[in-house]
């Protein structure tokens, strides 16, 4: 019988200022495999929303199809969920966002959902700088259909049956950087300490935030020879930037100020909603404000077989789809009909030109 996962570990169930505890941000029990990386991501999302103190019903959680895409059922039960069709979540999110810009949009997808059937929609959601957090739970395989290679499978990685992938992988991070995403990060489901602040930053960012989360599939891609197994990921993963998040209206508690900073290497970036991310870089010369510098840094490590993680790039002044289209601030779904209908007089007037 499925035990209620994720088990969220938390010292005491302290309610946030909305009076909600972590439990209030959980969802239905997970039906994923015990140990699936996706459940850890779910737990981190629960934690992030709880700490950001978002009212659940102001959250829209959308997904495509896949084990990863099932997870919205497992977090924030009080949010509006939409488990759509395979690879089509970006377009559904675009329409939803067009209709109501006042909600928080979180899209959950998988590497199959986003890089194969859905890559076209992902590419164009990025171009529009759609205001949403887009999380790819990346395990290098199609989990729900039992373990075929996905487009993120590394060259040489072995399937459970032992065949090696030989097609060059798509790295969502490099792709997003190339296409102009305004917030690009990578994390590992096994490292909650890193994942939670990045999620919070992504949720607080205005514009398209992409987080590629390496999230191992214990059932079909956690064996020896797999480059996306827990073991191999732990070995290769390298935090080139460590991220620390401080919410706008937030007194950091003990746990979070202890992190020591090597003076000079730390940068503070103020996000649209007033909160701040503190970034600590591994390489001195790397400029987190420069797309090209980020791309180079990622490529430099990737070419060494490492899996660079962290918040690589953030542009806090980018204009989202609505800025570009000049949409009114009022959610379109709430603009009264009277404001939308020109009325009979205008119609008569207009028709004078139809003669």
């Amino acid at each position, binding site marked *: 019988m499925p035990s209620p996962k994720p088990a969220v570990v938390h010292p005491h169930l302290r309610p946030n200022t909305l009076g909600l505890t972590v439990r209030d941000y959980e969802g239905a029990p997970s039906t994923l495999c015990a140990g699936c990386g996706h459940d850890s991501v779910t737990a981190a999302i629960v934690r992030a929303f709880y700490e950001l103190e978002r009212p659940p019903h102001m959250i829209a959680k959308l997904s495509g199809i896949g084990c990863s895409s099932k997870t919205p059922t497992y977090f924030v039960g009080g949010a509006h969920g939409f488990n759509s069709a395979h690879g089509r979540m970006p377009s559904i999110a675009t*329409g*939803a966002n067009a209709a109501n810009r006042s909600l928080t949009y979180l899209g959950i997808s998988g590497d199959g959902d986003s890089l194969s059937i859905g890559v076209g929609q992902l590419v164009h959601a990025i171009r529009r700088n759609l205001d949403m957090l887009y999380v790819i739970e990346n395990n290098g395989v199609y989990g729900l259909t039992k373990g075929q290679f996905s487009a993120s499978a590394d060259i040489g990685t072995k399937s459970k049956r032992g065949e090696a992938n030989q097609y060059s992988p798509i790295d969502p991070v490099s792709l997003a950087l190339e296409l102009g995403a305004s917030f690009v990060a990578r994390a590992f489901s096994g490292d909650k300490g890193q994942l939670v602040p990045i999620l919070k930053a992504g949720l607080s960012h205005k514009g398209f935030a992409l987080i590629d989360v390496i999230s191992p599939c214990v059932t079909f891609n956690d064996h020896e020879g797999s480059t996306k197994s827990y073991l191999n990921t732990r070995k290769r993963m390298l935090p080139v930037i460590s991220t620390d998040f401080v919410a706008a209206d937030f007194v950091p508690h003990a746990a979070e100020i202890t992190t020591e900073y090597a003076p000079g290497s730390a940068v503070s970036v103020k996000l649209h909603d007033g909160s701040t991310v503190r970034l600590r870089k591994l390489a001195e010369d790397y400029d987190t404000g420069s797309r090209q510098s980020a791309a180079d840094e990622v490529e430099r490590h990737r070419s060494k077989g490492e899996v660079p993680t962290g918040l690589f790039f953030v542009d806090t002044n980018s204009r989202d*789809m609505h800025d570009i289209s000049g949409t009114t601030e009022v959610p*379109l779904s709430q603009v009264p009909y009277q404001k939308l209908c020109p009325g009979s007089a205008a119609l008569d007037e207009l028709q004078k030109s139809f003669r």
Partner: protein
Amino acid sequence: MHQRQVIRTNDFALKLANVNGTGSASANGLLMQAIFRMGIPVSGKNLFPSNIQGLPTWYEVRVSKSGHTARALDYDLCIAMNAETYARDVKEVRSGGALLYDSSWPLDAALSRPDVTFLGVPLARMCNAIFTDSRERILMKNIAYLGTLVALLDIDMGVIDELLEEKFSKKKALRDSNHKALRAGYDFAIENFECPLPIRLEKMHATDDRILIDGNTATALGCLYAGATVAAWYPITPATSVMDSFKELCAEYRKDPETGKNNYCIVQAEDELAAIGMVIGASWNGARAFTSTAGPGISLMGELIGLAYYAEIPAVIVDVQRTGPSTGMPTRTQQGDILACAYASHGDTKHILLFPANPGECFTLAVAAFDLAERFQTPVFVLSDLDIGMNDWVCPRLKWDDGYRPNRGRVLGAAELEKMTKFFRYSPENEDHVAARTLPGVHSKGAFFTRGSGHNKLGGYTEVPDEYQEVMDRLAKKHKAAAAAVPAPILHKQVDAAFGIISLGGCDPAVREAVAALAERGIIADYLRVLGFPFGAEVEAFLAAHERVFVVEQNRDAQLRTLLTMETSAPKEKLRSVLVYGGFPLSSRHVIDGITAQLAQLEHR
């Protein structure tokens, strides 16, 4: 010659043969508009190729004092401006008719006809004499033949002047060029031909309360007035101008007076799969949203249309049909997507369809589409076509009832939710078999999970047969319930009709003309035009009341007949088809010939 002496006032047809991209469109438009302003019923059909410049294109103008606007198949006067199609064009002039050609070059004797009057006008020479710029020399030839027509057809020069004034009020130079060219063509005609021709115009007042409008503009107007705020689309002929118009209209009427911001959001999607996804996302989130496309787009939208059907999300899809299958003939008309839309997507699905017959109905049915989509929480298709959508039609002035309020269907507000103990998405259902929905962000109690996977009547995920079936059965009932809600068919009843005719959409003008013509021959038919699917009681009654019913439609596979056969109780044997699907608009002759031929057959049994 004697034939020519029969004077035919306000009742004739012209064919203008041009090369596309040479500026003939504006001259031909002016011609049509001028006749309209003279108060005379007129229709224009633009038969253009699927490229941008250099291929044959035709424009047909029919003048009919009795108001017949369907395509005429024989032409009293042909303006032959395209050497490439000259041979073909000469053939199409009716015996006793006339042909106007550019006499700057000698005429190929082989192509002359004894029963046709050839009117040579040295258009190129004239324009070369008047203008220096080479582009202008080409463009103005069109205005020059317009001038000739003014003389030949006795068009009111005042009206033409007025039109040019309006058109070029800001471009004096252009206006003058136009005047010069027009004059040249006019004067030449007066000097060289006996004007006017027996086919001629005379002012009427038949268009006083009417407008000239194309269906796509009317559809866009309907969406504007229905309160659509989100539109997502991908360019495709012949649907593109729906969104072009919507964009222009929004720019004009949807800027917020206070903030100057847009009370709309139009997204040019990366393809049709994304466009329908955006519409579904926006509707799910409470906006009135729509997309416009053509056949290929419908095919691509299939999967997500099934999602909207099963998850019960409103969506308005305008399909401006063109000739299929596949890419087919993108600039030709057809009614070939009826079945593709009615049963779109895999699995058991059925959708609501609306069939506008003219721009006026494009306007009203676009509005109806949103009300139906939200009332029944399901996709609704507006099936227009290229003929309706891209040609200018003379229509009664559009009316708008300021008392109209959108029917948003069953949507629970914060207050209602506050009162509830618990909200379930798919129950309880009302008499339409529709359950209430909620919108994200409105109230914490309203949250629910939308999914295209198996769900029970509470909205929970299920793989239990009975629970799954319960929802599917309700969806079937819901679709049936819509029969009473779609616009009623229009019945043209006669006394002692021998049979019935059922048709839809753009076939209407041709069928009405045919019914009248048949009546003159003593062949009496009742005519019912369906405006929507599922079919209501009126359709059943009409079918029950007639022993034999001819179904007239513009596709090869009798798609409307199929729908009538499957979705009414009528025995299929009584339904016979008249099918025209070559890609050009329907003419009454097609209908008359189709029906009389079958009647003859039936007798010789």
